[in-house]
């Protein structure tokens, strides 16, 4: 038991390890289930992803596609009843799924910083924001002095663009606007210079005018710290501007992944095509909605889960019966579509 925990898990010489040589975060065949007594519902099914230092990977998909669960599996912060039931999550070569609670705590907020979706609820309304930033530092350094924390908090708040940081540190969250709160959220995520920043739809709850500012701030933080960013979004405009790599999810599975330009130029999955068409800003698409409703976990259609809503495969027996595998089409471009050649943009 001890050998397993103490021995650093080094990359073993096999095919999978070869491709993840430079990856900071490497998720392999992740499975997440909703467990209720004996019944299990698969929520995330076989997701694999690699993320190198300094890189931004966007997770795209509709609500319920499993993007947030995938990201939160990395931090091991899943809601009650939801469990990782298979696969591996390696950060810097270390399997987080096998880490003890104590080891996980040392990783959370330290090697991995989280920027949450809703800055209105992610901060404790009863605690001054400076204290909440300081707690992220104190959680990983019990012996640090109060003065040192205060200095670092002021520095962090100033870095994320909070004016008059020393005085504003003593204010409570309700005295800040949504954008300012999200800046505080980024300060918390950056407090211990993380190697990975997970941002779960960090701008969804914000005014359009401040969305770009917050994303710029994240970009700056990434460039200056060299951290990798796992950015969850359903806004393809954001993807086009910020991503290096894109991973499209549908019904708990990865349906396509590619470098950002490649994905926008040559989408190879009917779902990606539909997403591009319904997003008015990202492409020449006119904002056509995707017909039907998103597939529900536990009641997935047979074959390709997207086929009932698909322009190409709705009536094709192969799409209705045969589950497509995620296959490589070319350099760093994978798709799980039976008819990638028929996808246009």
């Amino acid at each position, binding site marked *: 038991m001890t050998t397993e925990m103490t021995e650093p898990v080094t990359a073993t010489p096999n095919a999978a390890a070869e491709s993840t040589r430079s990856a900071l975060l490497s998720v392999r065949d992740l499975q997440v289930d909703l467990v209720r007594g004996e019944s299990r519902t698969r929520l995330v099914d076989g997701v694999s992803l690699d993320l190198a230092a300094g890189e931004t990977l966007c997770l795209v998909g509709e609500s319920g596609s499993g993007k947030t669960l995938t990201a939160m599996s990395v931090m091991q*912060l899943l809601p009650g009843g939801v469990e990782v039931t298979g696969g591996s999550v390696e950060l810097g070569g270390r399997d987080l799924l096998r880490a003890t609670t104590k080891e996980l705590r040392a990783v959370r907020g330290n090697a991995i910083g*989280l920027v949450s979706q*809703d800055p209105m609820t992610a*901060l404790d309304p*009863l*605690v001054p924001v400076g204290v909440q930033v300081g707690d992220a530092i104190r959680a*990983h350094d019990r012996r640090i002095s109060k003065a040192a924390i205060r200095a670092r908090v002021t520095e962090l708040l100033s870095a994320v663009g909070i004016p008059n940081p020393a005085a504003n540190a003593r204010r409570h969250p309700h005295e800040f606007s949504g954008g300012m709160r999200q800046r505080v959220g980024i300060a918390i995520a950056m*407090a211990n210079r993380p190697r990975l920043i997970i941002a779960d739809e960090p701008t969804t709850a914000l005014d359009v005018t401040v969305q770009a500012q917050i994303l710029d701030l994240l970009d700056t933080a990434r460039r200056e710290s060299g951290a990798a960013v796992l950015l969850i979004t359903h806004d393809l405009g954001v993807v086009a501007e910020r991503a290096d790599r894109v991973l499209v999810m549908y019904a708990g599975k990865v349906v396509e992944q590619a470098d950002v330009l490649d994905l926008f130029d040559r989408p190879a999955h009917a779902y990606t095509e539909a997403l591009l068409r319904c997003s008015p800003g990202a492409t020449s698409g006119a904002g056509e909605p995707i017909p039907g409703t998103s597939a529900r976990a536990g009641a997935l259609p047979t074959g390709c889960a997207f086929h009932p809503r698909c322009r190409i495969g709705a009536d094709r027996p192969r799409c209705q019966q045969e589950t497509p595998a995620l296959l490589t089409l070319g350099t760093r471009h994978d798709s799980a579509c039976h008819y990638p050649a028929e996808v246009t943009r």
Partner: protein
Amino acid sequence: MTRFVLGRVAQMAVTLLGASVVVFTVLRLMPGDPALVYAGPFAGSDVVEAVRDRMGLHDPLPVQYLLWLKAFVTGDLGVSSISGLPVSQLVGSALAQTALLTLTTSLLAIGVGVPLGLLAALRKGTWADRLVAGFNTVALGVPNFWLGLILVIVFAINFSILPAGGSAKLTEDPLGALTSLVLPTIALGLAPAAMLARLTRGAVIEVMHEDFMTMAAAKGMSIGFVIRRSLLRHVFLNLLPVLAILVGSLLTGAAIIESVFTLPGAGRLIIESTRQRDYAVLQTLLVIFVAVFLLVTFVADILYSVLDPRVRGHLMREGGVR
């Protein structure tokens, strides 16, 4: 803030005045005659009339009320029509006794209830949770006077390790006064402890679902750190209204337990004075009870605004200058 406080104080004064009218009227509507009680069953009608005259019972009710009110606000609470002792002395010592019992009972209820609720919530679904739930059911189901009697039989009579009650004064015999409070405190505090355990469990589970708790975990904070920093504050805010009602009802409603343990508290005084139609004592005591309730909820509101910066900010805006 100041304007808020002043407004509330004025509001409480009006409420109290209204309550004094109600108390006064209801007491006079009560069957029985203090003059008859005072004069005794063998007194002639002329004696009763004389007593009635001396007590001022011949005046019209509004006049009686205004005379009493005038004396009351100038600090003259009158004398007990039965014992002849000053009301201030009777009520004062009874309230001191009850306040002491309220303090020990509240400490027991909070000291036992909150940790149990916390344990049950953090170990939700385990045997610890079920054990606490079992304790709650039993503690809430057992009537406190019955528990009091059992405690007296076991600890005072069979084992003789604790007094069955008593009237030792804290100032004269501190140890005696405190040991005589042990059994009544347990009898009185067990049900509130169970109630607080239940409420705490619910509040903790609710707060645990808040986004900022997930965020705290994502920062790498240990559970103890999170409990101290966030959880307890939110749980306490949740419990504050209940705690106010608990303290208020303990201050005014410990009559049965005080009788069981023969503690000379406010509850017993109110029963005795009612039996004897001792208007002067009853009026004072009941008005003070109303005042206590108003004061306790007022203090709870102030505490709320101190602890919750959102409410504090709101009050400052509403109230104008600080």
